[in-house]
């Protein structure tokens, strides 16, 4: 009853029929959303469901084409982020909006409307960071900070503006499980203070644990309002995807007799190539035929540097530090390593994995012009465009790539479909070694399941698969062994059956490998 009388006040934020159209695509279609005071409200949906567009409209970065926003019961226009902040809306971005060449305090100063000297802000930030358990040194250059620390700066920056509503966009995607727990404590404290939080995530167990209400989006429309505590993870997933996601099937490799080692990394060290990159320190890893080895770790701990070294984007001084199918490959170019039977899929799809402005068939040719020279070129170097197109069509069919034209430009595909094509392009060669960096980052659940299944099948056919991923659930699903990368060091791989997410989480946070291995064994 007391609760009811408190609810006489209008909801903190309400949207009615909010719509945003980009050209032919309706990114948000008549969104109704109600966020009450002192509530953690989850916004669920797959990639491309319209979550980011909706949030951008609430934070004033985008203007809606139709519909209205009620703030505290009053219709409000939010034309700019500055206006949103004035109303009392704060935002912590998924892709951090920090300035790397400035200090933490300068970064915070930039987001505050009042003209306070940077030194005063540093003091206030320090006080606030202690009060909420978010340790950060305000005088550090942001470029030198870890991802978790950067997120803390974002949160402190947001809290200094004393917002009523805090929007968090996929906050745990860059955190270790332990860091995520600390974040949840902070969020619960904020809720107890009566602040509202709009929590965007696709991690359903988090949402079930933390949130009081949820709004589920699919293809730009609201498909459900619900209380996540009354739902199961499976029922939430069904609402998001529209049908049940197929589970990946995998038969574990037989332990005991080891198959041939196809990819060996021996004492690999690399000095940092840029001021913002991580040195590699004595990385040791072997991937045998038929195995999937996963490398876990918080982003920015040397994974990209390792990928560059293994793929041949950066050459090693000592050729024997990387061996592919028993041959020293550390001094070989990317094509040289591909000719040995290796294949590589980098993290960034557009601009690294594929040339955005070129057609799929051209992208296929770009990566396989050396390995499939006979099939794609005449003896004088003229392209057999028919053969290339046919191969690219075959890959698209095999991987269920959904596209609007027969041979569209890479940039015209959605992230998930392009990733399916890029992985399919490598799998089509039946490589004996494949190294994939973040295979399903930002890919919707259906496409992710397809990609994982394809990697599992490749390993079953006798290839060595190395998967670098930030998604622990993914590694637990497909990998036979999991190693953890932290600060340029790689832990000893442990069998997935014996690994726990606590043990992995401790390693991701920088615990001594020996210590964690002991715990895992116990």
């Amino acid at each position, binding site marked *: 009853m007391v609760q009811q009388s408190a609810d006489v006040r209008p909801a903190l934020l309400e949207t009615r029929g909010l719509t945003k159209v980009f050209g032919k695509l309706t990114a948000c279609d008549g969104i109704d959303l109600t966020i009450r005071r002192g509530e953690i409200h989850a916004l669920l949906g797959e990639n491309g469901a319209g979550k980011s567009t909706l949030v951008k409209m609430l934070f004033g970065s985008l203007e809606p084409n139709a519909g209205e926003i009620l703030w505290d019961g009053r219709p409000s226009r939010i034309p700019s982020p500055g206006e949103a902040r004035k109303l009392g809306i704060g935002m912590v971005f998924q892709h951090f909006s920090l*300035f790397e*060449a400035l200090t933490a305090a300068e970064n915070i100063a930039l987001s505050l409307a009042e003209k306070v000297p940077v030194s005063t802000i540093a003091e206030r930030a320090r006080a606030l960071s202690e009060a909420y358990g978010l340790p950060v040194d305000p005088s550090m250059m942001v470029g030198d900070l870890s991802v978790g620390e950067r997120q803390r700066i974002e949160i402190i920056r947001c809290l200094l503006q004393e917002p009523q509503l805090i929007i968090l966009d996929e906050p745990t995607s860059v955190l270790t499980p332990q860091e995520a727990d600390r974040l949840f404590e902070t969020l619960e404290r904020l809720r107890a203070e009566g602040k509202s939080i709009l929590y965007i995530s696709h991690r359903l167990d988090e949402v079930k644990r933390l949130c009081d209400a949820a709004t589920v989006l699919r293809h730009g429309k609201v498909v459900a309002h619900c209380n996540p505590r009354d739902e199961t993870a499976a029922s939430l997933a069904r609402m998001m995807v529209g049908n049940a996601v197929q589970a990946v099937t995998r038969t574990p490799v037989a332990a005991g007799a080891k198959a041939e080692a196809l990819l060996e990394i021996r004492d690999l060290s690399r000095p940092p190539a840029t001021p913002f990159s991580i040195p590699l320190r004595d990385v040791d890893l072997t991937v045998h035929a038929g195995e999937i080895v996963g490398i876990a770790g918080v982003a920015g701990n040397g994974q990209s540097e390792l990928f560059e070294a293994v793929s041949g984007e950066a050459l090693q001084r000592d050729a024997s530090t990387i061996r592919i199918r028993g041959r020293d490959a550390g001094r070989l170019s990317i094509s040289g390593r591909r000719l040995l039977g290796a294949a590589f899929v980098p993290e960034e799809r557009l601009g690294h994995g594929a040339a955005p402005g070129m057609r799929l068939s051209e992208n296929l040719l770009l990566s396989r012009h050396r390995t499939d020279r006979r099939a794609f070129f005449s003896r004088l170097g003229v392209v057999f465009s028919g053969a290339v197109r046919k191969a690219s069509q075959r890959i698209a069919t095999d991987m269920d790539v959904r596209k609007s034209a027969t041979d569209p430009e890479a940039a015209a595909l959605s992230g998930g479909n392009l990733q399916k094509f890029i992985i399919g392009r490598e799998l089509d060669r039946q490589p004996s070694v494949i190294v994939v960096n973040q295979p399903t980052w930002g890919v919707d659940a259906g496409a992710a399941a397809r990609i994982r299944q394809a990697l599992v099948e490749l390993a079953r056919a006798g290839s060595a698969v190395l998967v670098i991923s930030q998604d622990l659930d993914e590694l637990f699903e497909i990998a036979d062994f999991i190693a953890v990368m932290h600060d340029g060091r790689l832990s000893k791989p442990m069998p997935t059956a014996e690994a726990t997410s606590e043990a992995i989480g401790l390693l991701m946070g920088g615990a001594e490998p020996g210590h964690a291995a002991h715990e895992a064994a116990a």
Partner: protein
Amino acid sequence: MLIAESILLTIATAATPLLLAAIGELVVERSGVLNLGVEGMMVMGAVCGFAAAALTGSPWIGMLAAILAGVLFSLLFGFLTLTIATNQVATGLSLTLLGLGLSSMIGEAFVGSPGVKLPTLANGIAEIPLVGQPVAGLLDLLAGIPLIGRVLFAQDPIFYISIALVIGVTWFLFHTRAGLVLRSVGDNHASAHALGTNVIGIRYLAVMFGGACAGLAGGHLSLVYTPQWVENMTAGRGWIALALVVFASWRPLRLLAGAYLFGAVSIGQLHAQALGLGIPSQLLSSLPYLATVLVLVLISRNRRLTMMNTPASLGQPFVPDR
């Protein structure tokens, strides 16, 4: 007058236009815009300044005209690269070509006509009623100090402006909120936009400041350095100013050192030619440019230094998604 003193004076005069153009470009680049049109804005400043001074007889009006010409020319660049987001490199290059051509056309009538020289600081102040005479007298007295007296106290006003600008820009960039905002726009324009900063507006202001400085540098050439109009009289100084910004790794005080080092090399080679060392004069005249290349090569070797200071969004057009 001692020979050393006169050498110092000529070095200061040679360095001033470089320093002016470079300090303007430094601010432009700190905001994330690469304006390769410095040479074009400079030469427009030179011709417009000379023309205005010749027509009105006042070198002061000439200086104002030079600044105005630089600003107007930079606004053209700003409209193209900021408002309609054209490629900054191509636009800057065409701005230089346009400036060189346009200035020859405007300046045709003024080739060979007598110039009006800007008075030195003391002579300028003396014209102010009441306080002017005693202050000028004091300055004349101070100029009598051996070796450095004339360098510090008997120069043209633009020299003092250039030094004040370096100090002012240092203070602005690193000690004011507006400077912080400008640096943030240069570091990551998407984030700055997300914070509600008016990226395009700030870049317009920076580009205009760069234009004003380049125009002033041009005016210095045609009204102080050599008070006359000669076609293409900037002679590549705009390009050297651009190189100096990289040399200084986007720090104003290092820019001061760079400009004077460069001034010293260009004056040094003149004296070396006069001494008749038997080195071909063409080789000596190319020394300043060789020095630029050498310094740039040495700077680029230290990647950490360059990367920490380079504005990360330099040269990238910004188009807000709306």
